[in-house]
């Protein structure tokens, strides 16, 4: 017999409170700021969608968005193939496995701002190993003055810091493939490429999806490292959305536009993650719907 009462809500309540405190209330505060203006004294005026329109129309936002998109695209284009390649090349048994795994995990253990500081010092022309080394080779490298050098430094730093994550995820997928698949492939005369394309890639697709999503979201939200290394410069050349947002909110204290921009930023990440997810799982869905027909 069904019991007609609302006791189930009591079970949900703790989680509801937790989510409210950790997500809903802060988010609503931001929504609150985004539709109002203030001249101090805790006096707020309703402005509707004005801040959203202003942010969306501003060239400053467009430029920052383009930089961030380009940065994420480059990060994914480099780290995903490189991560897969390293995972494929890693040993499968013996003492070398532990050695490689520890080596791969090391960069992941270093805090973001420390990574930034390491590379900030590493790249300095006067005392940094990299900067000074390049200079003594006669290469004109200076990340504080040259846009290209600044970008190259940030990208190499991120590749150094985060490719390991892709490697570890892919490696976990690769080692879970039963040996018999490789034996069957040898019987079938499959080339190295065919083995990758038809056995390894399909089997690591799920972890690869996680890797792509994580690396996209993290690189799209990157803040600490470029803040420490370049501070957004030279000029505005490495001012990504996150840096721009902090400048607007904390530097200029434009709470309204900053709140509107936060929400737009959030929605862009959500939208692009959804696109990645949908595209990468479409093959799975095809197969499932075919299965459903029988």
């Amino acid at each position, binding site marked *: 017999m069904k019991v007609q009462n609302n006791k189930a809500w009591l079970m949900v309540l703790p989680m509801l409170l937790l989510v409210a405190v950790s997500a809903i209330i802060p988010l609503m505060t931001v929504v609150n700021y985004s539709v109002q203006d203030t001249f101090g004294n805790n006096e707020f005026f309703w402005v509707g969608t004005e801040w959203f329109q202003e942010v969306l129309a501003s060239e400053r936002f467009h430029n920052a968005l383009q930089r961030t998109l380009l940065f994420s695209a480059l990060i994914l284009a480099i780290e995903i193939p490189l991560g897969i390649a390293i995972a494929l090349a890693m040993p499968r048994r013996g003492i070398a496995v532990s050695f490689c795994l520890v080596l791969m995990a090391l960069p992941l253990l270093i805090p973001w701002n420390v990574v930034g500081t390491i590379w900030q010092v590493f790249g300095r022309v006067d005392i940094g190993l990299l900067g000074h080394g390049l200079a003594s080779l006669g290469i004109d490298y200076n990340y504080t003055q040259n846009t290209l050098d600044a970008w190259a430094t940030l990208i190499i730093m991120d590749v150094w810091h985060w490719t390991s994550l892709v490697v570890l995820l892919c490696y976990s997928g690769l080692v879970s493939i*039963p040996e*018999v*698949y490789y*034996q*069957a492939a*040898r*019987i*079938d*005369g*499959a*080339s190295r490429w*065919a083995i990758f394309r*038809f*056995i390894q890639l*399909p*089997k690591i697709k799920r972890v690869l999806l996680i890797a792509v999503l994580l690396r996209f979201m993290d690189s799209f939200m990157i803040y600490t490292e470029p803040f420490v290394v370049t501070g957004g410069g030279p000029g505005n050349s490495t001012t990504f959305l996150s840096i721009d947002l902090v400048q607007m909110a904390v530097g200029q204290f434009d709470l309204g536009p900053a709140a509107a921009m936060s929400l737009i930023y959030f929605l862009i990440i959500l939208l692009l993650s959804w696109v990645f997810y949908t595209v990468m799982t479409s*093959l799975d869905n*095809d*197969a499932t719907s*075919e*299965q459903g027909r*029988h």
Partner: protein
Amino acid sequence: MASIHLKNLGHRYSASDAGIDNPYALNPLDQVWEDGGAYALLGPSGCGKTTLLNIISGLLRPSEGRVLFDGEDVTDLSTERRNIAQVFQFPVVYDTLTVAENLAFPLRNRGMDSATIEARVSETLTMLGLERRANERARSLNADDKQKISLGRGLVRTDVRAILFDEPLTVIDPHLKWQLRTELKKIHERYGHTMIYVTHDQTEALTFADKVVVMNAGSILQVGSPKELFDRPRHTFVGTFIGSPGMNVLRCIFDGEAAVVDGVRLPLDEATIIAAHARGLAASGVSLEVGMRPESLVLVDAGASSADDPHCFNVDVIGVEDLGRHSLVRLRLGQQLLCALHPEGAEIPEAAALRFDPARTLLYESSLLVEAIG
């Protein structure tokens, strides 16, 4: 298609195992698999069946000896160049490809032109009865259709010299096992591939193969037709492993005319007596074994008629199990246990005797059958 000759072949997994008692996963052997034969490789788990199979297909390189296909030495050839097909215990399909693409895969890898591939694939689909599922993704199939695709990737190749099966029906539903085995048998009859079928299931082995190869502990014990293995097992292991229940094996000595089990004389047939004398077994008084199939024993009433019959001996009944059409009667002769089959419903005599057939009573020395040489 080809005959396969394993010449003085042996395998050790690691050279450092040399110190231990028997370092071989596969003891040195010499074995010819005839062209077009349907062989079953039968033995308990861990006896070296899969090792032997992987050596033939080239997935494993033997530590000694040669592998010859039609007299040509292929020991150093890679798996793909040996033109072997192998079906594994768990079905292997390429998930993202369709059924037809799966079958085309080995042909594409060998650079065949698309018209030939298409013809071969559609022929193979018909052979397997998978025509209607050609354009479905392989992952959506059930285990037995997946296993058919694994087999199909071997059948689709015209150049395949032998098809090897490594316990291919393990994951197949019991009611489909029989059906798939029948289809395999049909394909063999029709196309005449050399087939080697590894299994630990005697029913599978005996129904599939013309010749059954029985292995244990890294050695081939006997090669023969299912009937030979049943009637004249040349090793006590073969006798006990094949048959359900297996052969009764009792310790005995040979007194010149009969096997003596704990004081009870079992007269043997002429050929066995001659062979035993040729080996000098009567004089030595060595410990031997006598083997009798439960199917060859008849349980009778221990009365006046059995007392005069030299081919009858008294036994104690210690238990009866119902097997359906038969009862399995557990008996004791002296200190040793044996069993016999008794028709369902027939009464078990209080004082029982067993009537045996000397022609089906075999003598073993150190587990090996005593028989005329040549």
